[in-house]
C-alpha cells in the first residue's frame, strides 16, 4: 500500500493537468491531427478524405475545411471541399495549393475539419476527430508511402489541444537508425506555446553523434535531417511536449518509406 502511494506521488508531476488531448471549449467542436504536407519538385502529398458523417449514415452533402500552415506555423490558406459520400476521395495537396502563386515553404502542417459532426457523436459526448491517412509520393515513384494520423491535435477554432509538460520529457524512438541510410525526422508542435526541442542521435555505446536544438512555434512542423551515420544509432527527443512522437521519412538509395514513431 505504501509502495503504491509512493509510486503515485512520484508519478504526479508527470500526469497532473497534463492530458495528451485537452477538452475543447465548444462541446460541438471537431478535432483534427496536425498532418505534414510536403510539396516540391521531389514531393507530392495526398490525403485520403473520408465522409465521416456519411459513415454514420447521416444523409446529405458534407464538407471539410482544410487549413494549411507554413513551416513557421502561420496559416496561409484554407479551402472548403465537398465530400462525395461513400466513394474514395483523394485530396491532391499539391493541386489544392497550386492556386497560390507561390508556396511560402516546401513543407508545413495542415488540418482537416469535418463540417458535420454525426448525430451519434453529438449525442454520445465524444468529439469527432480526423486521424486519417496521408500518402507521400517521392520523386514521382509509382507507389505512395502512407502514414496514419494519431494525434488529436487541434480543434476547429484552431486552438491547439496538446498541453505542456511540467518537466522535460524524453521520447526515445524505438527504432534503429542504420548506417548508409538517410532520415528526415518530422515533428509538429500541437500546443499553444513555443516549445524548445532537443534532437539527439545517440549510438548504442551511449555517445552522442548529432545534436540539434530548435524552437517549434505553435502548429509548426520541424524537419530534422539525419545523414552520414557511422554507427547504428537511435533518436532521443527532449522537450516539454507531452507526446513528441515524430514521423520518420527513411531514404535508402532511391526509395522512401514513412512511418510514425
Amino acid at each position, binding site marked *: 500500500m505504501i509502495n503504491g502511494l509512493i509510486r503515485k506521488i512520484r508519478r504526479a508531476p508527470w500526469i497532473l493537468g497534463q492530458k495528451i488531448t485537452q477538452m475543447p471549449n465548444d462541446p460541438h467542436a471537431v478535432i483534427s491531427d496536425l498532418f505534414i504536407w510536403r510539396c516540391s519538385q521531389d514531393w507530392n502529398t495526398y490525403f485520403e478524405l473520408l465522409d465521416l458523417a456519411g459513415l454514420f449514415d447521416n444523409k446529405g452533402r458534407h464538407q471539410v475545411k482544410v487549413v494549411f500552415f507554413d513551416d513557421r506555423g502561420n496559416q496561409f490558406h484554407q479551402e472548403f471541399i465537398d465530400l462525395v*459520400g461513400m466513394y474514395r476521395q483523394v485530396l491532391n495537396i499539391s493541386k489544392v495549393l497550386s492556386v497560390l502563386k507561390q508556396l511560402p515553404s516546401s513543407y508545413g502542417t495542415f488540418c482537416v475539419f469535418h463540417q458535420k459532426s454525426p448525430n451519434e457523436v453529438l449525442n454520445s459526448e465524444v468529439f469527432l476527430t480526423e486521424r486519417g491517412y496521408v500518402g507521400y509520393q517521392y520523386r514521382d*515513384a*509509382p507507389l505512395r508511402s502512407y502514414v496514419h494520423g494519431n494525434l488529436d491535435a487541434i480543434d476547429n477554432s484552431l486552438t491547439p489541444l496538446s498541453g505542456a509538460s511540467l518537466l522535460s520529457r524524453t521520447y526515445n524512438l524505438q527504432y534503429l537508425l542504420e548506417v548508409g541510410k538517410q532520415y528526415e525526422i518530422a515533428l509538429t508542435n500541437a500546443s499553444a506555446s513555443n516549445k524548445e526541442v532537443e534532437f539527439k542521435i545517440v549510438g548504442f555505446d551511449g555517445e552522442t553523434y548529432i545534436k540539434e536544438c530548435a524552437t517549434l512555434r505553435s502548429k509548426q512542423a520541424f524537419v530534422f535531417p539525419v545523414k552520414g551515420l557511422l554507427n547504428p544509432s537511435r533518436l532521443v527527443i527532449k522537450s516539454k511536449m507531452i507526446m513528441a512522437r515524430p514521423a520518420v521519412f527513411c531514404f535508402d538509395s532511391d526509395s522512401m518509406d514513412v512511418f510514425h514513431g
Partner: protein
Amino acid sequence: MSYFPILNAPYCMGETTLYNFPPNNWESTKCVDQYVSLTYIKNNLWHSVTLDKLSYLSYIKISGNNIVDLAPEGVLPLLSLSSVELPKVSKELPILSCSHTVVPEYRSTLGLRSSSMVTSYQGEVNFFPSPASLLTFSPFLQFGEHIENYLLFLNVEKSPKKRMAEVEIYDAHSKLLKQTQSVCNNQVNIISLDDSGFDDQSLPVVVCETMAAIPFYFSSYKKGELLSFEHTHSPASLVVLGNRFNTQRQLKEYWFSQLKR
C-alpha cells in the same frame, strides 16, 4: 506487455527489431537485461524458446531466416522481451513479465524486406478477445502497371487452438459484397485485393464478424522493387475524449446490418 510478430508478405522476408530501452522517461520501467523469446504454435500448444539475452540499451534484429530451424514452417513467429524465461510449453499465450508503457506503447520495428528495399511499421500486438469483430474502411489500394495490393490480416489470440473465420470485403457505396476469404487465428493471413473489382473511386470496407485483427495493407511495385505498408484504424479512432467504444459499437451495428451478403 506486448508480443512482436515477424510478419511476411509477397516478395518479402519479415524482420523485427526489438529494443531493450523504454520509449519515454516518465513511465517507470526496469533497467535490466531481458530474455528474447520466440513463441509459436505446435500441436495446439504454445511453445517458447529463448533466443538471446538482450542487454539494457541494446537492440536485436531477427528475421524470418534466423528462425527457420526453430519454428515449424507457416506458423506465426512471435518475439517478446521478458525479465524471466518463458515456459517451454503452455496452453495459453504466456503473460510476459516485463516493463510496460502506455504513452506511447512499448514498440518494436516490424519490417518487410524485399531484394530492393525495406518498409516498416512501429508496432506491437496484444492478444485479441475471442470471438471479436473487425470493421474498417480501407483507402490504401494503389493502381497502375506492375502494382499489387494485399491485405495482411494479423490475428493473435490467447488460445493456440485453431479456428477459422470469414473476412468479407464490400464496396462502401453499393454495400455489395466483393470478396470473401477464410482466415485463421494466430496468423498473418495474406489476401490479394487486386481481383475484387475495386477501382480508384472505390472505398473498400473490410469486415470480419467473428475475429478481430490488425488490418495491414501492403502494396508492391514490380515484385518488391518498391513497397508500401500501413494499417487502417478501428472505428473507435474516429472519436476521442469520451466513450469511444460505444461509438464503435454503434458504427459496427449499422454497417453489419446494412451490408448486402
